[in-house]
């Protein structure tokens, strides 16, 4: 683990053409890191995320993405992701390839990736049209009961980026509250960047906390309010007004482009 500045960390770990997973299930979304990726002008990324949320709406609108791997692309509690829709419906700023799963499928793809397995098994997708369009889905038969289940291909991103509440000086990272799929994202990825609210001398044990030991983390960058406008439990609340504001900003290409200029 190396303690770096955010710009330095993104420059070192995220390359054009990479498969990048930014995770955080409505909580601890690594938005500051996403903005740095936009500022550094990364291109042709395959963006992976269970819930693209406004963070990927911004990256897609900014032209970072060639492909999106996801399960649910909305502005939670507000409505559509207009930049995502514009890319899929009209190819703006350029066409966006899509690989679409369910939440359960995405979660199991990360689990398989973190476990060093080529696939995961679940009860899911059967009877849906996703089966016709998603190549990373297949049927698999139970060797004991003969029952047919669904296999999903493992996810092993080039880089995982997550935000956490804190790290200690040795680079052990601690996050708590709703911890989503972040542990799996980091463990499934070849490299990882973790932005944190603060670095502390030592990590006091915390109920419900996930700890990622420093030796499975590539880089840590201190980034206070790095999850804004989402929230960091124990630090700040969700800025719901911005989520609503985003709806207006993202509806038109011109207002979005203006916003992009301020980043």
């Amino acid at each position, binding site marked *: 683990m190396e303690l770096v500045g955010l710009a330095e960390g993104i420059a070192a770990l995220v390359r054009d053409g990479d498969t990048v997973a930014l995770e955080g299930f409505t909580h601890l979304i690594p938005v500051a890191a996403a903005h740095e990726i936009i500022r550094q002008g990364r291109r042709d990324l395959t963006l992976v995320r269970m819930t693209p949320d406004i963070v990927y709406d911004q990256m897609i609108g900014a032209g970072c993405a060639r492909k999106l791997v996801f399960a649910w692309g909305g502005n939670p509690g507000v409505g559509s992701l207009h930049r995502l829709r514009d890319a*899929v*419906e009209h190819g703006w700023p350029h066409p966006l390839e899509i690989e679409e799963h369910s939440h359960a499928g995405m*979660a*199991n793809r990360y689990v398989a990736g973190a476990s060093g397995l080529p696939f995961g098994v679940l*009860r*899911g997708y*059967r009877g849906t049209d*996703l089966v016709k369009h998603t190549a990373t889905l297949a049927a698999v038969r139970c060797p004991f009961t003969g029952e047919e289940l669904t296999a999903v291909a493992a996810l092993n991103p080039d880089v995982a980026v997550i935000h956490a509440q804190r790290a200690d000086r040795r680079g052990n990272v601690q996050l708590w509250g709703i911890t989503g799929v972040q542990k*799996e994202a980091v463990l499934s990825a070849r490299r990882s960047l973790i932005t944190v609210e603060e670095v502390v001398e030592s990590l006091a044990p915390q109920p419900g906390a996930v700890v990622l030991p420093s030796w499975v983390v590539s880089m840590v960058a201190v980034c206070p309010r790095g999850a804004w406008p989402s929230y960091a439990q124990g630090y700040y*609340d969700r800025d719901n007004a911005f989520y609503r504001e985003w709806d207006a900003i993202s509806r038109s290409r011109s207002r979005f482009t203006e916003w992009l200029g301020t980043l």
Partner: protein
Amino acid sequence: MVVAAARALTGRTSCFVGIGLPSTAANLARRLHAPELVLVYESGAIGAKPSRLPLSIGDGELAETADAVVSVPEVFNYWLQPGRIEVGFLSAAQLDRYGNLNTTVIGGDYRRPEVRLPGAGGAPEIAAACREVILIVRQNPRTFVQTIDFVTSVGYGSGPGERQRLGLRGRGPVRVITDLGVLEPDPVTCELALTQVHPGVEVDDVKKATGWPLSVGELTETAPPTPAELAVLRELEGGTR
């Protein structure tokens, strides 16, 4: 509609909740007639008891009030998939007479659709695994359609026996609550039929709002919201402003 949905949770033990109407209905039920109802959010909050309506399924209030908070893989694998959750609430942009749902694309080609919707999220597995599913959808000819453009989540598929054939272990949609009334599946054909209308709604209004020739079952009228229901609903909704 919300009140009708909350009432549908009477006597239920656990409910898998998404954000929006389902969350409001489930929290309303918990405060009124189902205080023991266990709310399970797909963000991993099990037994959440929020004091206000959460802003999103990952709201911090959910984690802080929950009996247990688990990872997202765990909530799907250990809690939803084995059929531990009694009721799942779902909504959709389109549904057909068998309660199959579309939340993916409308019109055009899948890769270049006219309208790109959010997608599947947790819905396909909620529809498959909850012991029963309740749908909450505003009723009009654009949502209640002859053929949905994309099957995101399976209701009764193409009819009787299809769920069993696909290995879907929950019973499927047992009730569709709309802004006009309530539809329930025919026990034999699995086709949704109108069984309840809200006060002031005519059967013909409902038929006109439905894109297929709607069957009508034995009809009752929804009891109007009680003052207690309305008061708690207002209080809940006030809390998020």
